[in-house]
């Protein structure tokens, strides 16, 4: 899952980015509205976390610009918590609204919920045969036994599980699992797939040459 974080406070930006990466997300950052809007229009993010008061374009304007062409879920994170502010945020196309300061766990939970909702997968637990993918706890179980995965590996299996039955191209995977700072070595995805098959069995992920990967 790839997330865009738009926040002008540098300390908060690095902290939140670090936290989100720790949750296994690929995170792009922007420290002003103009950059934020540019990136948001450029890439299909799974979620955008948007501050409201920023230099340049503010959160409302970024949202307005984004909604002209994109449905990316947006969580507004702001110091303004008056009810009219919340209403304005939700009415201008935000999917959720969170006031600073909030608990990090709550922020992460809301991001997860947004992603689930957006990919039509409201149940946080996805069962594939004897494998259970718990998208809330970020854990994978096989026959009730936990299989330890790296954050990237989990992200990959989660992404495919959420689009169960669909073939996902390598490009899409690169776009959603790696952020702007990752080197896009062309064989990186092959390595992850190889590792996952080793840990969870070769049946789980299917490959169709020239089309992509799929969890049935």
């Amino acid at each position, binding site marked *: 899952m790839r997330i865009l974080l738009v926040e002008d*406070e540098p300390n908060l930006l690095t902290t939140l980015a670090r936290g989100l990466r720790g949750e296994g997300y690929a995170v792009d950052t922007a420290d002003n509205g103009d950059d934020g809007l540019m990136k948001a229009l450029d890439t299909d993010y799974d979620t955008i976390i948007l501050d409201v008061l920023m230099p340049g374009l503010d959160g409302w304007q970024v949202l307005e610009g984004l909604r002209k062409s994109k449905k990316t879920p947006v969580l507004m994170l702001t*110091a303004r918590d008056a009810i009219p502010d919340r209403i304005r945020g939700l009415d201008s196309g935000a999917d959720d609204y969170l*006031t600073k300061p909030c608990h990090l766990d709550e922020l992460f939970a809301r991001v997860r919920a947004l992603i689930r909702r957006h990919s039509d997968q409201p149940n946080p637990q996805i069962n594939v045969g004897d494998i259970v993918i718990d998208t809330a706890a970020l854990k994978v179980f096989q026959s009730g036994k936990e299989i330890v995965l790296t954050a990237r590996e989990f992200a990959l299996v989660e992404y495919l599980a959420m689009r169960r039955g669909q073939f996902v191209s390598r490009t899409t995977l690169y776009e959603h699992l790696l952020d702007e700072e990752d080197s896009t070595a062309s064989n990186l995805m092959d390595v992850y797939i190889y590792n996952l098959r080793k840990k969870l069995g070769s049946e789980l992920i299917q490959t169709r040459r020239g089309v992509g990967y799929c969890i049935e």
Partner: protein
Amino acid sequence: MTNLFQSIRWRLQAWHTLLLVVVLSGFGAVSYLFLRNNLYNEVEEELQRGLSALASGVKSEKPGGEIRLSEPALLLRVPRDQEQRFAPDNEHSFYFAVWIDGQIARKSSSPLAEDLPVPQWKSGTDRITVRTRGKLREHIAFSSGRANKLFGELKSPSAGKGTRPGELPRAIVLVGCSLENVDSELRKLGSLLAVSGVVIFAMGTSIGWLFSGQAINSIGTISDAAKEIAAGDSSLRIDLQDTDSELGELASVLNESFDRLRDSQARQAQFTADASHELRTPAFVVLSQAQLALRNKELSEENREAFQVCESAAVQMKELIESLLVLARQDSGAQSEVRETCQLDKIAGEAVDLLQPLASKKGVTVRTELKPVEVTGDPSLLRQVVANLVNNAIEYIKPSDEVRISVDQDSESSVVLTVADNGPGISPENLPRLFDRFYRADQSRSGQNGHTGLGLAICKVIVEAHQGEISVSSELGNGATFSVNLPA
């Protein structure tokens, strides 16, 4: 209204009445006396004219002859212009002509003259005694030997006037009239003056009362408005029509002061709100950094503790910010108020449910007795009031103690919520300041348990914004009871 006699209106009225009484009675007395004098003078003049005319009519039968004593044929012709006055049927005027020896030469046939004692010449002296009754006014002239020559007049009865020595008068002419007409006229005039005086007095006092009422009314308007503004409705202004009067000026000066006061209140509230917002981001940085660090399972115990302290401090800061914002919003009054009919018992129940885990953790018993009552207000703010009170109670009592929450109809127009505990109670010196901002009854606990010192201040602000009242009663060692009264 204040004490009746301290009221400005009453004092004004008293002075006004006093002044009116003095002026009216003075004016009445002066005009009565003046008119009476005039009327009497007229009477006197008339009599004088009559006397002169009659005296000139005293003649001897023999033209040019002397009037002699005991001469029977003394004539007294009544001149033409006086005929009417001394006509026999005139009951008010009369005349006498008397010889010096007391014989009546002639007299008018008026009944007044019949009853009158004959004027007596005090022989050997120069005095004439006329005894008349009080209601008559007489003029007397006496004549010596020669006709139509008068020596003098006696203006008042029983008073004498000297004749020339050696020249004893021969005859006296006396005219008089009754003052009945004049007196009855004077009586009419007197009662007219009295009646009109009373009417003018009544009108004067009532108009005065109305005017002073109007003036006082403006003062009343000002003081009513000022009272309401003092009670917290800072958007109210004094509405006075006559802005050019002194009171109008006072009102506009007061209005300006209220504007300034409100501005500064608004600025203060705005500042608190801005500052709180600005504090949110740094508080969030600290909180998220600490939480992020605490996720690291390989953290040393020492570092973990340090980050936990940071986290709890950041959480406390967050609560402080939220509390300040609630206060700033209530202070500025700018927030669009939510007012809906809500079940206070349900709100209280929800707040208690939320705090049940905290109570269980501490081992405190929470009892509720919630009767269904409805109030108009903001449910989330009212929930906060209950939560703050219950939370406080749980914090300050011992594990074996209990908290009782009740909601009930107090009277037809008010409901009461009480949160009572049987804990250590609050010392009397702390009670009056309990609802002050940042005031903590137990200073040693400041900053612990996430207490901001704003919880009760917030309760007070919210309750007052709902036109309610919050109060506390407590005794050291005997628990504390917080009561919230809200209009039903």
